[in-house]
Structure formats: structure tokens, C-alpha cells
């Protein structure tokens, strides 16, 4: 500590420690800790907070599992189903994005030449800068009942009636895969780019078929990138709110939408906080599973 102050001088040290402390404590740790605490409390009006009724309870979590005490069902089927679907679909989108991106990332990193590769990277970055809401809106124009895809299908005579892609959730899944595809490309690209091309040449010279080169040389080398891309895509899909609100069918919900309702129309913040904790826990489990599976550290994932 004294070494730190000696090295930076008193004024700069104060700034460094102050800024980092505000960020870590006031912005990251305390809000998360308080949200956890809050999720175990009853929904009370401000006047009663800190009063005798302000005690810890598991009711908010019990609600997610079993629903309201007065409901006839044994479990809260609606919310549990939405939660499971959110997780399963997010995993599916993560896998799909990986399958879509791996060839592109490999091509740019190992096959394409200088200027062409840089141009492709720029082309990849551009759509990423367009607002998430607008990207979702674009998918509405594409997938709506009077949208481009339906018009094409009809003019080709493939269907008589327009297909309701929105109700079938096709638009949502396509929109989510699209929204986060670039967060898969870049980690993969960075990881594959650092692979020495001679290793691939060596494998080829020794008679390895192309798929085995990927399986045994390129992919093992790209593990940190794969882990990083999968974590980001999963976390963003499971935590997406705009795309499900805009592209989701009327009868299907995303877990974040239920959280949103508790905070807005529902007016039950502790309940919403409990649901948020469950979502956070799911993401945490996913990150830990990825770290175990790919044998990478957190530092390698978030780069």
C-alpha cells in the first residue's frame, strides 16, 4: 500500500483508489448484495420498511416454484416453463451462433489475406453498431405477415396463406441469433488468429483430413475464444429484453419479460428481485460450467 502511494504520489493515488473503490463498492458489490437481500423481503410500502413487519422470507422464491398459495396447481407451471424455455432456447441459440460463426472466424483469421480480411472485419463490425431495438424492428419487417419473406414465399407459390412467423417464435429466435452473432465471431477470430499457420500446414502435410485439422488443431487452440463467445451469447440471449418484447409471440414470454412485469405493472419489486437473482444464478451456473468444460479461467473469458 505504501509502495503504491510512493509509486504514484499522493494525489494520483487518491484518485486511483477513490475511483476504483466507488466503482467496485458503490456500483458493483453493494447493489448486487442489496438486491440479494431485497429478494428475501416482503413487498412493503416505504413507511413500513425497517418496521416490525420487515422480516426475511422465502415467499418470493416459493412463488416462482409453487405459484400463489391460493392457486389450485401444485407448481407455478407458467413461470417455470418460461424459465426453462428461456434457458433451453438460449443454449440452442448459443450453439447455432457457434456453428454459424466458426467457419467465418476461421476463414478471416487463417485463410483471407491482409486487406481483404480487414475489410471483412469492418463489415462485421458495422451491423453491430446499429441499435438493438432497430435490429429487432428490421426482423419485424422481414418476418411480419406482410413482410418480405412471406411475400417471397407467396410469389413463389410455396404457400397460399402468409405464415405467422411471429406467433411461431421463428422471428424471435432468428432475431436473437442475429443480435449476438458478432459477440461470437470476434472472440473466435481473436483465438484462431493467434494459431500459428505452420501448425495447420504440418497437420496437412502429415495427411490429416480437413475436419480433423479443425477438431484436433484449430478448435483446441481456440478454446478460450469458444468459451468466451459462448458465455457472452448465452448471457445476452437469456438476459435479452428488447427482442422478446418486439419479436415475441403474444402467447409466449421470455423470463426477463416476467421480471419486467413485476417491476412495472406488477408493482412487486422484491418479487422481481428474486426472479432476477434466479436469472443471475442461471447465468453464473452456465459460466462455471463453461469454465469447467473448456478448462479456462474467467480472465480468458472476459477479454
Amino acid at each position: 500500500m505504501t509502495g503504491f502511494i510512493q509509486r504514484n504520489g499522493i494525489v494520483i493515488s487518491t484518485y486511483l483508489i477513490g475511483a476504483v473503490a466507488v466503482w467496485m463498492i458503490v456500483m458493483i458489490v453493494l447493489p448486487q448484495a442489496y438486491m440479494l437481500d431485497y429478494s428475501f423481503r416482503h413487498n412493503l410500502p416505504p413507511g413500513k420498511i425497517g418496521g416490525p413487519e420487515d422480516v426475511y422470507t422465502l415467499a418470493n422464491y416459493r412463488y416462482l416454484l409453487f405459484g400463489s398459495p391460493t392457486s389450485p396447481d401444485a407448481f407455478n407451471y407458467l413461470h417455470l416453463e418460461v424459465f426453462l424455455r428461456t434457458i433451453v432456447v438460449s443454449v440452442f441459440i448459443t450453439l447455432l451462433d457457434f456453428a454459424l460463426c466458426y467457419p467465418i472466424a476461421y476463414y478471416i483469421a487463417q485463410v483471407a489475406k491482409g486487406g481483404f480480411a480487414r475489410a471483412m472485419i469492418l463489415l462485421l463490425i458495422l451491423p453491430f453498431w446499429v441499435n438493438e431495438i432497430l435490429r429487432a424492428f428490421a426482423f419485424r419487417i422481414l418476418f411480419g405477415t406482410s413482410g418480405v419473406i412471406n411475400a417471397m414465399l407467396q410469389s413463389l407459390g410455396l404457400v397460399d396463406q402468409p405464415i405467422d412467423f411471429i406467433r411461431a417464435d421463428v422471428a424471435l429466435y432468428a432475431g436473437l441469433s442475429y443480435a449476438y452473432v458478432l459477440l461470437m465471431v470476434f472472440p473466435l477470430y481473436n483465438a484462431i488468429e493467434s494459431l500459428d499457420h505452420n501448425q495447420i500446414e504440418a497437420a496437412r502435410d502429415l495427411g490429416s483430413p480437413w475436419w480433423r485439422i479443425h477438431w484436433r488443431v484449430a478448435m483446441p487452440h481456440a478454446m478460450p475464444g469458444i468459451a468466451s463467445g459462448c458465455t457472452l451469447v448465452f448471457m445476452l440471449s437469456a438476459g435479452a429484453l428488447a427482442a422478446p418484447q418486439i419479436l415475441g409471440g403474444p402467447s409466449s414470454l421470455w423470463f426477463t419479460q416476467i421480471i419486467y412485469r413485476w417491476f412495472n405493472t406488477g408493482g412487486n419489486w422484491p418479487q422481481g428481485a428474486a426472479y432476477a437473482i434466479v436469472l443471475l444464478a442461471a447465468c453464473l451456473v452456465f459460466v462455471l460450467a463453461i469454465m469447467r468444460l473448456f478448462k479456462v479461467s474467467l480472465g480468458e473469458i472476459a477479454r
Partner: protein
Amino acid sequence: MSSESIRKLMVSFYILLFFGFLFAPLIMMTIAAFNDVSFPQVVPWEGFTLRWFPALMDDALMMEGFTNSIWIGLGVVCLSVPIGLAAAIVMTQVHRRVRSLYYTIVVSPVLTPGVILGISTLVFWDRLGTLMDADYESLYYSGLFLTIVGQSTFISAYTMLVFLARLQRFDRTQEEAALDLGATHAQVFWKVLIPFLRPAIFSAMGLAFLTSFENYNTTVFTIQAKSTLTTVLAGKVRMGTQPDLAALAVLIIGVTLVGAIAIEIAQRRELRREYAAKAAAARAERATATPVQVPAQ
């Protein structure tokens, strides 16, 4: 045709498909913005029109959201750039044993869903407000302030990563040389470190502003009764779809594309300048190295 060339053909075809997938939605939306029908669609094409663009300016709600977005973006820049800078410098100096714990804490916001950052900020400041017995006009309940704080939680991690990337190339001997020559710590900071980091400061500012401007997930919880451009947009898109939305989209896409390309060009120029400087230094070293060699007597 050999199997090799078939494979090459397939790869090229796939790349075309992939970029088609990336750009088709944006292109379709652009076409819809100029189509003269009252529902945003590409077909049937009813003729070219610009009438959806002026319609935007009359929208008071949208203009208010836009102004708020600008203020929030500036606030986020003022908060997240100094924090990210400090966090990056501390990272390079922190003891090896605590470094991984420190890193875990400061990058955790990047791996946390945005909705959760928004919610935790909202409930935390709400509670602080209750504890302080503050009135509802105070900072604890201000949508704009909470949004700035909530967004900065994760945007500071982004700016930190930008600074870290640049700091990795920093030559510590410059700092030591300045100190040996009698500079104070503050002088070293302002005259050596900050000038070295200047390009990173500009990229971090741009990144912070753009990220803030387009954020939705965190903002939608912290903004409360106020609005930003993205929350107004989301409300409009959910309600129904008018073609002026497509027009707005085209405007925003245009502005963001120009901004993104500008950042990209600036970064490349910086890289090129660095390569040039390095090459010049290497040349100079060779040039000075030669005469020093003492000729064999």
C-alpha cells in the same frame, strides 16, 4: 473439378450467405423507409417518398427522449472514462496474488445481464433514498442519474479493457526516466502517461457514449418516469409499426455507421503511426549502432 475447388466454392458461397444474413435486415428496413405506404413494408413498392423523415421532427416525445439520451451519454462518459482509466492503472500495479480476484470483480458487470444491473441499481438507490429520508425530487430517485450510474457500472469495464490493451504496450522505463530526471508523480502522470493514453481515451469516450446511447436493458429499469430515445423507440415498435420508425432507423443507422467508421479509421491510423514510429526507431537504432562498432585496428 477437384474436391479442393468444390470446397473453396462452398466456403465462398457460405461467406456470401453469412454477410447476406448480416445486412439483409438493415437493407430491407432502409427500403421500407422510402416506400410510400402507411405500413413499413418493402413489397408492394408504391413509389419513392421522403415524407416519413419530416414526420419525425414533430414527435415531441421522441425529441425529449433524444435530449435525455444525449445528457445520459455525456454523464456516462464523464463517469466511466475516469473509472476505467483508474481501474486499468490499478490492474497493472496490483499485487499478483490479488490480481485475479480484482479482475473477477471488475469484469463481472460484463458477464452480468443488463437487466440485472438495472434492477440492482434501482433497488439499491431506492433503499438509500429511504434510509436518508430523501424527498422524491432528490438524486436517489432521479431517472437520469440512476441511468448514468447503472450504465456506467458495465461501461466502465469496457473502457477499462480499452485502457488495458493500450497500457500493455506502455514502456515503464519512460516513467522511470522522467522520475530520475526529477519529475514529480503528478508530472509523470500528466506529461507521460496521459499523452501516451490519449488515443485510448478518445476511443473509450466514443465507445462509452455509443454504448450508452443505444442501451436498453439497463435503462428500461433505471429510467422510471423519464424516457430515452431507445425506450421511446421500443414503446413505439411494440405498439405498432409506422413507416416513420423505419425512417428514424435509417437516420440512426446512418449516424452510427459514420461514427463507427470514423472510430475505425482513427484506430487504424493510430496503429499505422505506431508501426511507422517503431520502424523508424529500429532504423535509427541500426544507423547509430553501426558507427559505434569500433573498427578493427
